[in-house]
């Protein structure tokens, strides 16, 4: 970045701006009056209990759902479905251990699968797909079957799938669930390197903030119908969360600096179908 940035460029740095954003479905508010802004190149964790509306946040950013009230700007405009500037890794994939298709095909399809007819530029497509796999250190998985990959390998391939169209923003929905601690560390490191080297903005939905916290620029904490955003050390304090939720919320830290939030999850709004510890 050069010195002497004009005001205009300065505002463009903020690529996501939410003003009094209230979201939900007909007759049911998921969370309301969120105000936050996210800058280019920031690594942001979206955390909170199950059913608090973390995936809804992604649906808003992707333009798949409209706000109930307030506004959301992404890249200086209202989000629009099908933006090529966003790479998305959903939580659920239809891919499983029966999907005997090589990884490179999936990544290629993410590059050109939206085009009709036969592909005329196979070489260009293949190169883009190989480059994306290379970028996530999964070049050697190119000709392996999706059905044969481990959870960690699969997440790397999904990341390549999202990166192949060269997005400016990554939305990663629970990529860390079902990974063991070592794989979690590897993947978080990979996402962090991707964010820094490509200057992309990454939103990562997670249950546990601890493996992420050292890399994060911001955290979006969604619970009990409200959203708190800011630097982790600012947001994740007993005082701030207690004020936001108007109930006693305690942020505890153990000797290694691991964080546990207690209290905010008790009044989750819906979807309490899983009895999960809300350790974040």
């Amino acid at each position, binding site marked *: 970045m050069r010195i002497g940035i004009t005001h205009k460029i300065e505002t463009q740095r903020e690529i996501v701006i939410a003003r009094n954003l209230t979201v939900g479905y007909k007759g049911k508010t998921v969370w309301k009056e969120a105000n936050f802004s996210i800058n280019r190149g920031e690594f942001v964790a979206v955390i909170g209990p199950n059913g608090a509306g973390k995936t809804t946040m992604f649906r808003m950013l*992707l333009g*798949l759902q409209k706000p109930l009230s307030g506004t959301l700007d992404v890249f200086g405009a209202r989000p629009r*479905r*099908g*933006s*090529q500037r*966003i790479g*998305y*890794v*959903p939580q*659920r*994939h*239809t*891919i499983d251990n029966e*999907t*005997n*298709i*090589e990884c490179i*095909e*999936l990544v290629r*399809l*993410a590059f*050109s*699968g*939206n*085009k*009709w*007819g*036969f*592909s005329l530029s196979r070489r260009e497509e293949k190169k883009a797909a190989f480059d994306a796999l290379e970028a996530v250190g999964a070049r050697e998985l190119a*000709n*392996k*079957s999706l059905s044969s990959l481990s959870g960690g390998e699969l997440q790397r391939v999904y990341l390549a*799938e*999202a990166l192949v*169209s060269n997005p400016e923003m990554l939305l990663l929905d629970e990529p860390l669930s079902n990974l063991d601690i070592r794989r979690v560390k590897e993947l978080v490191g990979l996402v962090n390197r991707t964010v820094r080297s490509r200057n992309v903005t990454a939103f990562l939905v997670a249950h546990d903030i601890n493996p992420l916290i050292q890399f994060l620029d911001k955290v979006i904490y969604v619970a009990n119908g409200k959203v708190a955003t800011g630097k982790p050390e600012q947001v994740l304090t007993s005082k701030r969360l207690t004020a936001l939720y108007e109930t006693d919320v305690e942020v505890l830290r153990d000797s290694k600096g691991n964080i546990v939030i207690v209290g905010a999850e008790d009044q989750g709004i819906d979807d309490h179908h899983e009895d999960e510890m809300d350790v974040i």
Partner: protein
Amino acid sequence: MLFSVNVFSALQQIFQYQFMQHAFEAGTIISVVAGIIGYLVVLRRTSFAAHAYAEIGFAGAAGSALAGINPLFGLLSASTIAGFGIAVLGNRATQRDVEIGSVLAFALGLGLLFISLYKGYATEAYSILFGEILGISGSSVLITLAVSVLILIAAALVYRPILFASLDEDVAEAKGMRTLLLGVIFMVLLAASVSIAIQVTGVLLIFALMVTPAATAIRLTKKPMYAVAIAAIISLFATWTGLFIAFYQPYPVSFFITSIVFGLYLIVRFIYRK
């Protein structure tokens, strides 16, 4: 010897009969279509829907037989309308087993009524349910060819987006692809393919061409295009061999086709391992 060892002269002998010519022509066209669409059926896990279209098509075929029209028309229109109907309910509706099951049971009952009202009860029902490739008329071959050409052109246009939407629907949707429209197109293509394939295998044995060859192929290769080709080759091999054997044997062609296809599936499933 039940048949001549010389395949060439045997084929010469077989092709002297017009019904065998028609059977080979229709069988060849249908096998190719079934291989191509079948791969997507297996990938999207919509084999139950494929079966439902066949049975809904049965009602249409029986109805048009009753009305004195070529049953193929009834078959095509009933199953295509059903394909459209199921697809517009939403992509995931195709997995709603209970709804599909209820509709297909009703369609089968309706077909039974039409068949019982129709004088040629036994043979007509039998040929729709179990296939009568040896009875395909010249005009049916032409209709099959025309429908297949349309299916293949449409498939060539939409194969890539449908493949992607089948593999990773949520990402496809986020990329702005019209997954619902793609689902509708796929279901209509599937319904039309099932309708023409019924002539070979019949309503009840539809999996023999629409599912089993593709399920075998998907185990043999990781590349979608190869899998499509292998599925078509398996269907072709089974249909041709089945016709060939059936020419010399008093047993039904469908039996041979289903047996060959199933045999290959078993071999690949249990013996071939990567």
